[in-house]
């Protein structure tokens, strides 16, 4: 299984992270254009959140295997300000930045598994996993 770490310091890293994510997703067995796009979009949004809220962090991409299933795990980590109210942040349409209000609920919809750990002053770690579907 492979691991790729993409440091996220500049907005150009967002593009690098999702392109590498797409490549790794193909390697682990994702082939439908929809799945590849969903994965790339999720990575893009998570990397973008890091830049926007924490200025820097990293996206770690792992190919994983469990119970005969193969998949891709995305871990977006930063040591930024943290999220004060995770439940609020997970509400659809909520956004502190006045943007389109997508953010985390959107990423959760795109992926199969989603977990977020965040502490004020300590940072945020978002883990999102997508499994290769049997039809691919």
């Amino acid at each position: 299984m492979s691991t790729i770490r993409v440091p996220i310091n500049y907005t150009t890293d967002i593009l690098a992270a999702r392109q590498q994510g797409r490549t790794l997703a193909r390697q682990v067995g994702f082939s439908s254009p929809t799945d590849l796009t969903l994965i790339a979009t999720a990575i893009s949004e998570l990397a973008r959140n890091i830049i926007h809220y924490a200025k820097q962090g990293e996206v770690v991409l792992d190919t994983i295997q469990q119970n005969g299933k193969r998949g891709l795990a995305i871990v977006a980590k930063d040591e930024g300000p943290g999220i004060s109210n995770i439940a609020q942040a997970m509400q659809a349409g909520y956004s502190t930045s006045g943007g389109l209000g997508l953010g985390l609920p959107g990423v959760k919809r795109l992926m199969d598994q989603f977990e977020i750990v965040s502490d004020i002053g300590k940072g945020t770690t978002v883990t999102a996993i997508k499994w290769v579907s049997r039809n691919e």
Partner: protein
Amino acid sequence: MQVPILRQGEYLIASFQAELTDTDLLRVRDALVEQVGRYRSRGVIVDVTVLDVMDSFATRTLRDIAHMIRLRGAETVIVGFQPEVAFAMVQLGMKLEGVATALDLEEGLAYLNRSTKSIGR
């Protein structure tokens, strides 16, 4: 990565050639808004056929392009959303409301022909 902007009569056509960085997107936005004035264009087509990811920044910038160009008196139509991109956008809640879209370049031109007729410039 430069985005070529072509003039077709009174329209501008911006064709995204490859995945763009945030800076590239902002450059296209500013170039289109400037050129609408320079060439007195009545319509703008932004062709996103090549994009296989449309994230929140790209969506926001497309929306800004359409609104800024409308302030300058011209109409914008975005064309070429791939099926999987359309799916991802809807899942993510990015609806691009208030922005005209069409299937492809041909449909985009037809749309602009219809909508700029009524402006009668």
